[in-house]
């Protein structure tokens, strides 16, 4: 009994790590643009498709497919960023919603049109189980955990110390002042956006061996789960996003086991609505940042 709960919690933390890597990109994009990126899950999907394509069609190894998946997403994100995201600087919130919804439709359906709408099988990755402290856990899940921790330590350092991180924080505080002191706001927006999309893609490629199935509509669900996380974490808050993702991951895992698998995907939106009602500024801050 106890070990089942513990196992579910560990599984939840792994799922949480996946969400965390996606959500942190979305929250940073919100920070610089003040807009929710409703297309964020699509970059997760693009990364997965890039990796699946390079394994199935090009016969590359899983390691190489990670690179291909992330790089191809970066290229697409660069184009989208140049054409769309940079225009959203200073635009009203509604424009951001509509524009990113539009991007989500275009990306998702282009992929379905090119590769077909059926489920694909992702047959690679480190799926051998290893035994740690009495649990057996797939290697891939450990890899996800490790990458998640590395990503967050890296981001924390970047946001605190690097020039890029400092300019990101500056843009998220006051766009007008940034322009006065000579920070290239569109450039910061583009870089943040590409970084976020690349992280989403990385998360997609890392999860693919665990989820096994790859399909065009997979990004939508991820976008929907990212929304409650970034609200819980406090919009624009990197560290908060990490803990919020873990909470959602564990909650989903427990609900799936003890309430019913079909209710797993509802947890996120129930959380989202409750959070928006009572703590729109997130779990970890005392007042709204934006």
């Amino acid at each position, binding site marked *: 009994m106890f070990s089942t709960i513990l196992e579910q919690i560990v599984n939840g933390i792994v799922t949480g790590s996946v969400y965390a890597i996606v959500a942190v990109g979305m929250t940073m994009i919100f920070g610089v643009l003040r807009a929710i990126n409703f297309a964020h899950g699509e970059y997760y999907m693009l990364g997965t498709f890039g990796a699946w394509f390079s394994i199935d069609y090009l016969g590359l190894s899983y390691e190489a497919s990670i690179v291909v998946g992330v790089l191809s997403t970066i290229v697409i994100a660069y184009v989208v960023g140049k054409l769309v995201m940079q225009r959203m600087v200073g635009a009203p919130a509604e*424009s951001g919603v*509509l*524009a990113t919804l*539009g991007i989500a439709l*275009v990306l*998702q*359906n282009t992929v379905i*049109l090119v590769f077909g709408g059926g489920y694909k099988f992702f047959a690679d990755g480190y799926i051998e189980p290893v035994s740690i402290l009495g649990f057996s856990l797939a290697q891939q899940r450990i890899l996800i955990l490790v990458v998640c921790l590395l990503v967050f330590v890296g981001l924390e350092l970047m946001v605190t110390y690097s020039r890029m991180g400092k300019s990101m924080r500056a843009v998220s505080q006051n766009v007008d002042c940034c322009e006065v002191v000579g920070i290239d706001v569109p450039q910061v927006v583009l870089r943040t956006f590409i970084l976020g999309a690349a992280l989403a893609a990385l998360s997609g490629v890392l999860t693919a061996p665990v989820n096994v199935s790859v399909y065009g509509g997979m990004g939508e669900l991820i976008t929907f789960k990212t929304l409650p996380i970034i609200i819980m974490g406090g919009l624009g808050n990197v560290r908060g996003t990490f803990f919020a993702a873990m909470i959602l991951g564990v909650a989903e895992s427990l609900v799936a086991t003890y309430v019913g698998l079909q209710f797993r995907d509802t947890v996120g939106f129930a959380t989202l609505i409750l959070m*928006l009602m009572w703590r*729109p500024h997130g779990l970890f801050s005392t007042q709204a940042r934006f």
Partner: protein
Amino acid sequence: MSLTETAQQIRRRDLRIPLGAILLVIALTAPFIGSRYVTHSLIIALIFMLPAHGLNLLVGYTGLLSLAQAAFFGIGAYTAGLLAVTYGTPFYVNVVAAGLAAGAIALPLGIPALRLRSTSFVMCTLGFVIIGQAIAKNWISVTRGDMGLSSIPKPHFALGPLSFTVSGTMGFYYLALAIGALATLAVWAIVRSPAGRNMIAIRENETLAESVGIPTWRYKLIVFMISAVFAGVGGSIYAHYLTVVSPLTFQMYYSTTMLIIVLGGGAGTISGVVFGSLLFVGLTEALRITPELRMIAYGLCLLALVFWFRQGFAPLINRFWNAIGGAK
């Protein structure tokens, strides 16, 4: 110079009444002119016009961007389907019940949701669609889950000794046309009333509207409910037309479609919504464009609307209307 100009203006005739008459004749004879498939496309366009009218009151007149329309559309479809299949109630009862059910559910959903602003409101309304779909999928004892409801009867009317069933595409077209026309008139009446002007005031500046004594909170809640009623009625007709309802009625895709109709046609104009539903739903259906291509086109339209044509087709329609009216 000015004299000749005036003379020219007089020579230009007001063609609005003849054009209106022609459009009316086309609307009334469309099933005889077009093929069965074209008629079907027009029916779908007319059905989607209803939730779009509701959304227009919300987005175009009150300034609230909502994605919840598909949730109310689904609630309407399920209400009508369940009533018809379980109790065998007639069509008009189902339509009214579906509208009322959607409106009634909109009240408890609207009270918390409308306290949120801009992006938060959008996310919350999106949540309603997802949760609606989850309920339709998992409340199997009532909704029959993924199997959905099937063999919903075609509309049947009984007036004393007279009774007839609307079964063919042609009959359904006239039914949808009548309901669509009624809905358009209803929106027109709402918008023209003092309440409509108060809604516009809320859209333009909510704080100012509040300060001149408009009960903005009550207005927003009531408009949210009215828009849900429109969506519910649309959903019930959709259920009766397709004769099946499945959890896929709760789809983001439908919300996006309704948004495209309103924004593409021109938010805050009634003619825009009518035109938008014919163009974005009717035409794409008639051309048998695959769903994927259609959604790519919708996505590109959204981008174009946001960055270049903020008012959609409305300015174009207005210019055309004024031009044939003889104005320069």
